[in-house]
């Protein structure tokens, strides 16, 4: 699957390949009202990674429903909407509205964006906050509900369990790690927002560990994300127990990254004579 915020509304990739070949396309984070996003500089490159502080610029849920959703159906892919709100009521309103969109297979609740003041991280950083939010959104939609977790917490297992107990159908992790970059000469932060979210290969070891811990903590499917660039990276996440993976920043360097990873996993299973995912998934051999 593609990771939210790194794949636009999916349609941007149709010149490169048939996006219906992916497990799912997770669209860019949607809010109740259109959001202008943060002032530029929004991105900074870091060693083997990048920081972003886009500030969730998006067209808002109404325009999405009217202008984008019908075109998604035509493209034939499976779609999941990623949503966020400033308040619990906004989350509920977005989820309720999107429940009416047949093209959407599920809703992914972003309780973890580090780049907007109320962008969910205040909900996602404690088990109590996340549990309350998940319960309310759960009641607002009949669609399968995935909860996307923040890595900026001390016990990811407890957070994942809170989402499960509150009714999540799956958890996805990780969102970006809060980071910062400064220019020693100008003495200024490189991002207008001062801090931003770190993604890319630099975060993979942290993501892998957290996905492993979450897999041990819950029974619902865990979707692994963070620094996946190749089929080999994706296989590591499957081995620690992820039911599926999402690919984000890798799409920027290689627009074909997602579909190359899909093909690479299949080739690996053929080569290793593995006929069912469950013969491999979660089969990490511990020392």
């Amino acid at each position, binding site marked *: 699957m593609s990771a939210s915020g790194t794949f636009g509304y999916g349609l*941007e990739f149709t010149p490169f390949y048939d996006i219906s070949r992916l497990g799912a396309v997770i669209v860019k984070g949607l809010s109740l009202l259109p959001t*202008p996003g943060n002032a530029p500089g929004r991105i900074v490159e870091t060693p083997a990674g990048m920081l972003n502080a886009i500030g969730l610029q998006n067209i808002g849920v109404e325009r999405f429903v009217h202008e984008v959703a019908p075109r998604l159906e035509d493209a034939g892919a499976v779609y999941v909407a990623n949503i966020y709100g400033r308040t619990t009521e906004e989350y509920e309103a977005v989820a309720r509205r999107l429940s009416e969109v047949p093209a959407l297979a599920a809703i992914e609740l972003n309780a973890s964006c580090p780049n907007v003041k109320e962008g969910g991280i205040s909900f996602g950083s404690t088990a109590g906050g996340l549990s309350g939010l998940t319960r309310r959104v759960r009641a607002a939609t009949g669609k399968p509900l995935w909860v996307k977790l923040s890595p900026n917490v001390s016990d990811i297992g407890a957070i994942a369990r809170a989402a499960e107990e509150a009714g999540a159908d799956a958890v996805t992790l990780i969102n970006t790690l809060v980071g910062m970059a400064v220019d020693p000469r100008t003495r200024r932060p490189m991002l207008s927002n001062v801090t931003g979210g770190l993604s*890319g290969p630099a975060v993979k070891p942290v993501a892998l560990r957290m996905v492993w811990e979450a897999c041990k903590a819950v029974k619902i499917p865990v979707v692994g994300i963070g620094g996946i*660039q190749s089929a080999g990276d994706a296989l590591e996440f499957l081995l620690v127990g992820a039911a599926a993976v999402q690919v984000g920043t890798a799409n920027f360097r290689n627009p074909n990254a997602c579909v190359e990873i899909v093909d690479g996993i299949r080739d690996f299973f053929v080569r290793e004579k593995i006929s069912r995912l469950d013969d491999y998934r979660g089969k990490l051999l511990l020392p």
Partner: protein
Amino acid sequence: MQAKFVHGKILHNTGRGIFYRMEVAIPDRIDFVPGQFAMVSGWPGNDPLLPRPLAIFRSGGVRGKGTVEFVYKVVGRGTALLSGLHAGDPLALTLPLGHGFEFPGEDRSWWLVGGGVGFSSVFPAAAALDGQRADFEIFLGARTRDQLPPGEWIPGGAVPGRVHLCTDDGTAGFFGTAAAALRDRIDRGKSSGLARVAILACGPREMLKAVAELALPLDIRVQVSLESHMACGFGVCWGCVTAVRDGEKSVYRRVCREGPVFDAKGVVW
């Protein structure tokens, strides 16, 4: 033409003064609009992670076999790594990207302004106009004489009076910036009328702003090619935005998608 992600092979990558000129063999011929660019990465490993945007300088080839050319200047790690690549080395490219210069049909005089390595997106426009035998003049600004592009790279440069070289230190051509030379040209043009003049410009933001402030009050249409740090280059990350006017409001538009060429009237400097 729709963007493609392709694997290419470097044919040559040679330094010329402060510039490198690199030609790459790609699977198919591509057509591009002057001002469009490619996202280029050619180094092994993940650091630097992101590809670098470079304007498409020229493209060639026949079906089944294409070439694309870039001119670049080394400013940091990515371009330094690029400059170390040799003939035969692989290169990954996404191209052609962005919204290039527009050439409205009416009979016009075109003034093309390039500051620094900005000539790399202005020259393809000049080459297109030269091909149509259109009337154009080029203003090239650089700090010093040795930072100007080699004369033989300038499309149609042999026509007397067509090329205005400008240096900040006066070591070649006009003593001052390209924008200052343009101001003089506008003053001279006022008697003969400026109604049919259109300006295309690429270079440092201060230069583009100066050009817009000179020309817009005289109702001269100005298109500027903006730069921005990019992660994807094809419209999905929203990292590259710049503020433009939308009626009374200012909104963020993607430099890689709605740009890099914008109507200067709308740009919030």
